[in-house]
């Protein structure tokens, strides 16, 4: 009964709203500089700025939603939001579940960071966020992989000595290495750049964002934005 009342209330309230197309953008909100929650509790970062600009160019109204990294793809396919813009690298395994736009970053280097120099990263205990290209890479190298649900916990695990090093996007680690005892050990290039992900049945919407990304590459505004957030690689 309670549900019924809420549903009716929700319908009554939304019936009058203009039918302008609203696109819900899903992100993680825990991966600076790509996306994070600022002090006011709002989604902020490179992808916030990028997403807002893309929506403006595609003449869409966009709202931001945060979702746990682990369930970010299932919640897209079941329709809770319309696109993922969450520092997600384009990989073949993910292509089977969702469709990506063209990359809006170059294939960016991933980096190992630890507390001691000269660590053999193929023979050590390495932390990575679960279901990422980095965790897949660690598993391939034969090192011992310890997975964590959030990026922040992978760094905390190094600092507490639980693991020897962390493998993550270099852009995520740069400010951490600058401000803490962690140091860079080694770099690897993984994935095919970061793109927005859409439902496979949603080609029309994906086309709009793809065109908007292309236009930002052309007029150089994407490069300016990458510079501003200190993300490596230019178009």
């Amino acid at each position: 009964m309670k549900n019924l009342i809420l549903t009716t209330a929700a319908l009554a309230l939304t019936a009058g709203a203009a039918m302008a197309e609203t696109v819900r953008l899903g992100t993680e909100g825990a991966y600076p500089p790509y996306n994070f929650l600022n002090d006011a509790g709002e989604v902020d970062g490179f992808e916030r700025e990028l997403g807002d600009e893309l929506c403006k160019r595609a003449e869409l109204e966009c709202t931001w939603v945060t979702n746990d990294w682990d369930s970010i793809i299932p919640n897209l396919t079941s329709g809770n939001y319309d696109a993922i813009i969450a520092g997600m690298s384009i990989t073949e395994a993910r292509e089977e579940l969702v469709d990506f736009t063209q990359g809006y970053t170059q294939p960016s280097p991933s980096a190992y960071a630890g507390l001691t120099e000269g660590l053999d990263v193929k023979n050590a205990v390495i932390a990575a966020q679960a279901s990422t290209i980095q965790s897949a890479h660690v598993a391939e190298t034969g090192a011992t992989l310890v997975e964590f649900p959030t990026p922040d916990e992978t760094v905390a695990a190094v600092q507490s000595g639980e693991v020897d090093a962390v493998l993550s996007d270099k852009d995520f680690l740069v400010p951490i290495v600058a401000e803490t005892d962690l140091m860079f050990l080694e770099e690897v290039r993984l994935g095919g750049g970061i793109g927005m992900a859409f439902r496979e049945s949603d080609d029309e919407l994906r086309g709009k964002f793809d065109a908007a990304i292309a236009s930002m590459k052309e007029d150089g505004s994407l490069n300016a934005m990458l510079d501003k957030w200190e993300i490596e690689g230019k178009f």
Partner: protein
Amino acid sequence: MLEGLQWLSCYLTTGKHMGFYVSFGTVLLLLAITAPVALGFGFGAAMLSRARIAPISWIGKGYIAAVRGVPDIAFFLFFVIALDQGIEWLLHQARCPEWTDPIRQGNDFVVCDIAKMPLGTSPQWIHETYGFALAVLTFAIVFGAFAGNVLYGAMNSVPRGQIETAEAYGMTHRQAFWRILVPQMWVYALPGLSNLWMVLIKATPLLFLLGVEDIVYWARELGGSKMARFTDYPHGDWRMWYFLVLLVFYLAFTRVSEIVLARITTKLSHGQATVGGEAQRKAA
């Protein structure tokens, strides 16, 4: 740069921290709504289980057995998605009969725009309210099954002589149930129900599985180390302190619950043919 207390008072009043404080309210509201709804579900299930017509009692017993047998976390992951898609499927059938595309396209679940629950155009708070309502319903179904089992046992614990006396006075089956059995069964149900209440308090972090930002989510988000480039309040790994706050909150809340439940037990034992009731009679 701000120093000491001034820094702390600014830090603790950021928009993010407001979200953290609000989430305490969310958890309390969830408990306040879920507990009576779950009790209602349980009462219904217990009544059905006691029905003299076999197929009806199977419904009650089947519900209790099925839900009690499924691990909570599987229930919270599977059932909510199924419920959400079920609602959207029904709306889709009602509102878009001319739609010809399949609803399942590979991995995608696609319904027409006006069958979305909530609508894609709805403001964020409606999405959150809807998620919260789904959470309440799911919690109520899970805890209702356990409460049903407790109440069923409690109803059977009321001495048979009480019902026989009621019938001897000429009460109908229904009158004997509502006037004699129900008022007396609570004292037998209370230990089991108070256990459930304690478990329910501690089960609230499952909210995050349902997309509701609860206190554990915020504690993790706020406690994680913050870099000076992305915040005015950089700090190291402070998760321990935030989780300590949660510990105090949960301990205080369960302690208050214990006190209240002890009082209710005393009140319900009054005049009952139980050990507790007998002790009260002798003390008086």
